[in-house]
């Protein structure tokens, strides 16, 4: 191409860029000035909206600790930077006060705000894309009839190039429309409802599904676990994964409703999910969620295999020195004090990730729905070196979890802060 040709291309590019920027500016200015909306809604619709708000766990990201309800400000750390949940109260300037029900549905399901800017997929619009219009309208009706909070949204701390929001158009083109493969087999009405609760409203896959290099959910391995998001790993919750760790419908339902069952206690992010969302579901929806997660024909829960101990004798001593005081000589635990380690889901997990983190960091006090509590557990990072933690974790898994594989000291080193 000639020099004049290049120049012409550049000139046109510049003009297009300028026009794009101007258009965006005008669009934002215009939409920022739109009329403040008043949503008329029956008490029944608002009550449904409140219920759906819990089922979709909106508060987890939109209500800051100690902050006004739904006024935003919760930091969400991602590999691309920190993104803050926004103000979704009906405030016209900082919240959704100028959103119509159409705008709201579009933002929820397509990830585009009213002023045309692209939301980050930290807002789970990829999961919400299958939300029904009626449910979106009920959510809108509830939110628009709450107290408006004049609280500005903190600016996100996202690194280049992910901080160019227009780039989300490309990301959406590639990933947003991907169909969700059901995690289990089924066809009953309860299974259908459960699918909607798990995949759409509950957006469980956002944490429990593995993700690709660009942060997209791996649709081929739904709910197969993800260890890269937080300090603790989100375990495999496919029917096979759950059954292999001893879960059946009854224990899963009890866990979702109360935060604990004989084989597990919800911790960290999942404890928040239980407190803010699953514990508030009605009996029918809890059943449906359980039925979908395990399938219409649930696999039989596996009892832990008896494993030949191969960990060295020292690890056995660490257990009596540091663990048995609360968890008991036989690992049976004490109600409301220390979990039973026998057949515990984290001890049985093929990956020792969460068990290692618990031994190193300990756990904070747990406040469950209602009045149930569990005291904190001290961490042993200073007491035990990598080899000792590895030996202890190996022994725990062999003794109580039916997992024979030796845990390497290197796995502990990687997880040590």
């Amino acid at each position: 191409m000639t020099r004049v040709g290049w120049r012409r291309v550049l000139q046109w590019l510049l003009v297009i860029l300028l026009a794009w920027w101007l258009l965006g500016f005008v669009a934002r200015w215009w939409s920022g000035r739109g009329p403040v909306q008043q949503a008329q809604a029956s008490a029944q619709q608002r009550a449904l909206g409140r219920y759906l708000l819990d089922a979709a766990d909106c508060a987890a990201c939109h209500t800051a600790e100690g902050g006004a309800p739904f006024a935003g400000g919760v930091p969400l750390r991602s590999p691309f930077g920190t993104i803050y949940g926004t103000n979704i109260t009906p405030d016209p300037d900082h919240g959704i006060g100028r959103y119509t029900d159409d705008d709201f549905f579009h933002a929820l399901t397509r990830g585009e705000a009213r002023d045309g800017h692209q939301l980050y997929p930290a807002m789970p619009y990829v999961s919400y894309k299958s939300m029904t219009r009626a449910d979106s309208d009920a959510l809108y009706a509830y939110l628009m009839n709450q107290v408006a909070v004049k609280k500005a949204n903190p600016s996100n701390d996202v690194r280049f190039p992910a901080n160019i929001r227009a780039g989300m158009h490309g990301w959406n083109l590639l990933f947003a429309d991907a169909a969700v493969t059901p995690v289990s087999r089924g066809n009953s009405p309860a299974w259908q409802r459960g699918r909607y609760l798990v995949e759409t409203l509950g957006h469980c896959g956002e944490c429990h599904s593995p993700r690709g290099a660009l942060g997209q959910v791996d649709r081929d391995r739904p709910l197969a676990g993800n260890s890269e998001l937080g300090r603790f790993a989100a375990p495999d919750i496919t029917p096979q994964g759950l059954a292999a760790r001893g879960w059946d419908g009854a224990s899963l339902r009890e866990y979702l409703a109360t935060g604990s069952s004989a084989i597990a206690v919800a911790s960290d992010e999942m404890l928040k999910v239980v407190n803010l969302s699953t514990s508030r579901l009605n009996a029918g929806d809890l059943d449906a969620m359980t039925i979908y997660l395990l399938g219409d024909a649930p696999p039989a829960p596996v009892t832990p295999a008896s494993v030949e101990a191969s960990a060295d004798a020292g690890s056995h001593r660490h257990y009596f020195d540091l663990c048995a005081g609360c968890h008991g000589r036989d690992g049976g635990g004490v109600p409301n004090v220390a979990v039973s380690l026998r057949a515990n889901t984290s001890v049985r997990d093929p990956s020792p990730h969460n068990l290692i983190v618990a031994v190193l960091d300990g756990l904070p006090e747990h406040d469950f729905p209602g009045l149930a509590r569990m005291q904190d557990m001290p961490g042993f990072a200073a007491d035990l070196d990598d080899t000792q933690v590895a030996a202890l974790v190996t022994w725990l898994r062999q003794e109580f979890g039916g997992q024979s594989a030796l845990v390497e000291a290197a796995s502990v080193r990687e997880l040590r802060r």
Partner: protein
Amino acid sequence: MTMLKLQINGKEYGPIDVPEDMMLVDVLHEYLGLTGTRFGCGQGECGACTVIVDDARGPREVRSCITGAHYFSGKPLRTVEGHARRDAAGAVSALSPVQQAFLDHFSFQCGYCTPGFVNAATVLLERLAKAPMRKEELEATILEALNPHLCRCTGYVRYYQAVKQLVLSTPGLVKP
């Protein structure tokens, strides 16, 4: 059964035959007659059973009700019986500064939590002697040291006041 030797308050004990899953507080009470250490919650939460370990990371507090006795093999430790000065006959001749300060300030009523508080304050003072703090950190540092200890008669304020005055009146604990 496993043989165990312990070094407590500068004195050697054992070897004695101690079950491998027995907690230290039970060994202190049942085998060694050191009954000053209190058994409170039995879950490591209240701090009444606190002993001091003087190992490489010490001096530090350890909850003796949830820590197996064999953990302390090779780790010198101190209990509440070890702080006061004693005469040749073994009678107490002078209390430790922490103990005296708690008496002077009427810090406790029933006294069940006191051994834990004495050990916590003793560890705090010894750590400050090694690494003095700035004056403005005083209150937060004392709170951090005493907070994990529970007192059901709520002597907290007087425990706090006793430790604060002791820290301020002991030379070398606060940076000038």
